[in-house]
């Protein structure tokens, strides 16, 4: 029984291209036509406890962005449900709508996530005004407060987004999200487009605000270093499935899934001692999400794959208290350790 603030319960998302008229006719006539579908997210179940930051890590095609959008209430899942404090985030039916304002998102691209035709003050105030969080009379004061909280001058409310740098725009985006007073903040690659020095500023801002406001966060990123810095727990995704989940420090120290280990090994290391580290890449290409390998998705690239891996997809199983991993190798060690 989960007591998480955010419950991702058996969520799957499939993108299918509907058959064209021609293909449907061909199908009727007996041709072998299959619907091409992408399983962006497969049966993901996750909880984010109140006050914790859960990192979601993976490479392109792993489904983390899609999952983030589903959790944000922008995209309805194909199956499964997202709940915030026990209540569904999106409505049912043919035109699902987002039901709550308590989940807000900070998007990746600071240049595209702000309406270029609106002033910064209007951008921040729009949501709260529409949802009655603030009265029109209080708007200016409210906006000024949030601007200074993210480290921007209150005068900037009158300016347009294109007059700001990437880092400043991301601050505005953070102010916009937090002005809605959410309980859960979803950050979708918030620092990926920023220079390293600006990235540090924004991460520090994020950590400070998280502490001050007691935020719960879902932090999506491909950058292992950044995720390690901000997350309490981390989930590693590969081709739509979670392959490992647990406390950040433990996973980075002692990964229990070959993909996690290979990923950690393949990241170039900044050597401060004057030495040179070898590059240890993962073999093989990322498979296309249109035709993922059977059984364990990772088996073609896994140095330890064996027969079972080709046939059977491993389930997430406990490898230590509070840690799960989806790998057949762990069964062997678990049973031998028992």
């Amino acid at each position, binding site marked *: 029984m989960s007591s998480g603030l955010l419950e991702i319960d058996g969520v799957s998302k499939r993108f299918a291209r509907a058959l064209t008229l021609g293909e449907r006719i061909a199908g009727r006539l007996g041709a072998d036509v299959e619907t091409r579908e992408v399983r962006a997210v497969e049966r993901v179940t996750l909880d984010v406890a109140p006050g914790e930051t859960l990192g979601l890590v993976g*490479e*392109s095609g792993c489904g983390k962005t899609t999952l983030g959008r589903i959790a944000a209430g922008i995209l309805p899942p194909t199956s499964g449900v997202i709940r915030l404090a026990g209540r569904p985030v999106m409505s049912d039916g043919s035109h699902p709508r987002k039901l709550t304002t308590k989940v807000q998102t900070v998007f990746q691209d600071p240049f595209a996530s702000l309406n270029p035709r609106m002033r910064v003050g209007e951008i921040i105030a729009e949501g709260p005004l529409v949802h009655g969080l603030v009265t029109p009379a209080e708007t200016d004061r409210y906006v000024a407060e949030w601007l200074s909280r993210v480290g921007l001058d209150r005068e900037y409310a009158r300016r347009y987004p294109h007059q700001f740098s990437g880092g400043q725009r991301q601050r505005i985006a953070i102010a916009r999200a937090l002005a809605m007073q959410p309980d859960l903040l979803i950050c979708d690659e918030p620092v990926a487009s920023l220079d390293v020095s600006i990235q540090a500023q924004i991460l520090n801002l994020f*950590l400070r605000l998280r502490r001050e406001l007691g935020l719960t966060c879902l932090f999506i990123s491909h950058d292992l270093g950044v995720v390690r*810095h901000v997350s309490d727990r981390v989930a590693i995704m590969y081709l739509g499935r979670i392959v490992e989940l647990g406390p950040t420090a433990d996973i980075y120290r002692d990964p229990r899934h070959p993909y996690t280990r290979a990923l950690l090994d*393949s990241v170039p290391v900044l*050597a401060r001692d004057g030495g040179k580290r070898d*590059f240890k890449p993962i073999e093989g290409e*990322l498979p296309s999400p249109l035709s993922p390998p059977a059984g364990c998705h990772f088996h073609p690239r896994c140095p330890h794959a064996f027969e079972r891996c080709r046939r059977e997809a491993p389930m997430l199983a406990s490898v230590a208290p509070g840690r799960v991993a989806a790998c057949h190798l762990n069964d062997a060690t678990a049973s031998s350790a028992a």
Partner: protein
Amino acid sequence: MTAKLLEVRGLKTYFFTRAGVVKAVDGVDFALARGKVLGLVGESGSGKTVTGFSILGLIDPPGRIVEGSIKLNGQELVNLAPAALRALRGRKIAMVFQDPAMTLNPVLSIGTQMAMAVRAHAGLSKRAALARARDALGRVGIPSPEERLAAFPHQFSGGMRQRVAIAIALLHDPELIVADEPTTALDVSIQGQILFEMRRLTRELGLSLIWITHDLAVVSGLADDMCVMYAGRIVERGPASRVLAQPLHPYTRGLLQSVPGMVAPGGELAQIPGSTPSLLRLPPGCAFRARCDRASAACAAMPDLSPRTTEHDVRCHHPVGLDERTEALA
């Protein structure tokens, strides 16, 4: 003193825009020896990409190389006639761009494009050109190159496309490859593969490489020497291992400390306040002054790039001292 493969002296590339003159590169000097890898490091607006483009003569109006010299094997590249420059490009120097879409024509098969590239500089028959293309694909680690020749760019993944772009760069055995952030847009695991291949190629072929990036970890693993650029100038220059272990310039030090991983998780990252000044309105004196915690009145005058130890140069009036360095980075 062996002759350098590439010598850049006093390079200045300005862009004459409607809003004013953008001094993208404002006096850059460095040299690259044969068979070595140079990392050109900087954030956006530092001028690193424009430097790379300048070396290849790819600066279009309103941009122009206003001053300086770029010598490849003693031959001056600045103001070289377009025809001569074209003959060099692809043959002696090649470029790999951040976005492989800039190199690959989407409507031609890989084999066709590579054969065209081969025959642009060497009068080979179509079959011989394709054979060379196939070898190049094999060299960058593309499996079953024979079949891949018939494929189109959209049938390749991002990492594969970048490998093809590198293969094209290698077709004529150039002496120098300039790579502009070729792995920035790629996944971490694919980046690892490309870096691995590049290291192998530089060793096997004695290839000289200029690797433009903002990622210090990549430079750490790949480069022999590095230059750190800020606001159009080089602020620190020296062997990569030395610069990264003992940075002299406050900006370099700040960059190193900003990387998560240098500090305990959850802790405050040492951040460089402010942001890069607009290249349209550079303040007089040291461009980093406004963001530097070591700045003083002396910084109103632009410091020169001067050597501190053998081969380690820095452009700063108050470079980080030895004792401070070891303290701060512990």
